[in-house]
């Protein structure tokens, strides 16, 4: 039977897992004609692809440029110039150099020091909502926590946070491919230019007055010359700011929804806070924030019995790998005690999410606080909608009450 190829069909947006389960069964490496690329859905194939950066490139801008007319290439040159220095879109050796440089700031040990502050922010946000009997969780909580945390860590002053968040959201338009956003490239570049203009003086300031923040640390790396150029520094500031926003918001909202829909797990977590870490991993696996991530074949590659040709693009479907029964027993069950839990919600291999340790701290603190302070929290509405995007699993709203 032919699998329908509309990744933005309402039933696929609502429940991508049933759709991907069928692909995994019937066509685990499938050419999606409508999207014009391969969908890789089995855990084993996804992991194999992640471990092959020499043949499967992450260089999105190289392929993006190829699709543009010379006129558009000129018009979008700022976007191309900086995005082609973003860690996520680069291959070794550039990727290796910059990743090693920023990695120290995001190790589990480094971000553990932020935990008390993250806990404080979680409590402040929840205290503001607690006076009422209801909240829209995405807008009132999940949206704010990651912005506050990464802004403080980078060294963005509180009064600039809102503006920076807005420019970052504009910048992101180009990545979250949506059905309804025709001028997304232009808006993305405009947002990026605002961010670059914002960071330029901040960087100059930290050069003169270094502080205990990430921008100062990156500036010092820049000053060691061979490590980071000024453009690379600007690109890295923007990608760090951007990368944690929407993804962490979705991790928080999807995770809360899964807990609310599996009340036994909610109760179990409430009674045993020591399960917070394994619960967070399970929520990442069960309904993580990123459905899929891109790669481009540099040469012909055999994968899952199919031949991918040089130049072909593919989606490595994390949401499917994480529900593969070959890897996870009872994959459609939420089990917050699951161990081991080698999910690929943060990717795998050299591009594994840099911010994963920080996202984990934020999610752990949020889930632990929610079950403790709002024991009777429940969904206020069952019919939830998702944003029409291929790569992210993003609830439009998550209304809850207590």
């Amino acid at each position, binding site marked *: 039977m032919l699998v329908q190829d509309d990744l933005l069909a309402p039933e696929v947006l609502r429940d991508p897992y049933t759709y991907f389960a069928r692909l995994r069964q019937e066509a685990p490496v499938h050419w999606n004609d409508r999207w014009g690329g391969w969908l890789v859905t089995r855990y084993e194939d996804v*992991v194999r692809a*992640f*471990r092959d950066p020499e043949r499967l490139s992450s260089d999105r801008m190289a392929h993006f440029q190829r699709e543009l007319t010379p006129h558009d290439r000129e018009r979008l040159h700022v976007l191309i110039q900086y995005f082609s220095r973003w860690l996520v879109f680069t291959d070794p050796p550039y990727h*290796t150099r910059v*990743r*090693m440089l920023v*990695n*120290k700031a*995001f*190790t*589990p*040990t480094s971000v553990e020091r932020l935990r008390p502050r993250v806990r404080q922010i979680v409590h402040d946000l929840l205290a503001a909502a607690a006076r009422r009997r209801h909240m829209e969780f995405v807008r009132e909580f999940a949206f704010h926590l990651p912005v506050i945390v990464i802004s403080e860590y980078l060294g963005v002053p509180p009064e600039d946070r809102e503006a920076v968040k807005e420019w970052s959201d504009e910048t992101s338009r180009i990545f979250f491919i949506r059905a309804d956003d025709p001028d997304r490239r232009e808006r993305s570049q405009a947002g990026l230019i605002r961010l670059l203009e914002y960071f330029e003086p901040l960087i100059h300031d930290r050069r003169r007055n270094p502080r205990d923040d990430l921008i100062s640390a990156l500036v010092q790396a820049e000053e060691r010359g061979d490590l980071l150029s000024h453009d690379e520094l600007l690109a890295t500031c923007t990608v760090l700011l951007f990368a944690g926003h929407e993804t962490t918001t979705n991790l928080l909202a999807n995770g809360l929804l899964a807990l609310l829909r599996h009340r036994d797990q909610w109760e179990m977590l409430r009674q045993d806070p020591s399960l917070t870490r394994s619960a967070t991993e399970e929520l990442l696996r069960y309904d993580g924030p990123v459905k899929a991530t891109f790669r481009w074949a540099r040469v012909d590659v055999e994968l899952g019995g199919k031949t991918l040709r040089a130049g072909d693009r593919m989606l490595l479907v994390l949401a499917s790998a994480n529900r593969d029964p070959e890897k996870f027993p009872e994959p459609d069950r939420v089990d917050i005690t699951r161990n*081991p839990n*080698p999910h690929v919600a*943060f*990717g*795998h*291999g*050299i591009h*594994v*999410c*840099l911010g*994963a*340790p920080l996202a984990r701290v934020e999610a752990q603190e949020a889930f632990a606080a929610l079950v403790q302070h709002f024991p009777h929290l429940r969904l206020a509405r069952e019919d939830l909608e998702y944003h029409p995007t291929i790569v992210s699993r993003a609830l439009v709203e998550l209304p809850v009450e207590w």
Partner: protein
Amino acid sequence: MRRLRIEVDLHRCVGSSICVLTAPRTFTLNTHGQSSVVDPEGDPLEVVLEAAEGCPTMAITVFDADTGEQLFP
């Protein structure tokens, strides 16, 4: 010189390669793309500890081979 025992938890290792890049005489990637110890004394202790701390999933545990003392995490 202090002798080390280094363990890599393969359920946690995601093949980021950071340990291999940090301490290339101690770690290598095996055929499955996961970290494997080639020589526990291949690099100085502080380099091995930096590699262990750099791991995004805390997959590496470092012990003093003689006393059994856990040096990281």
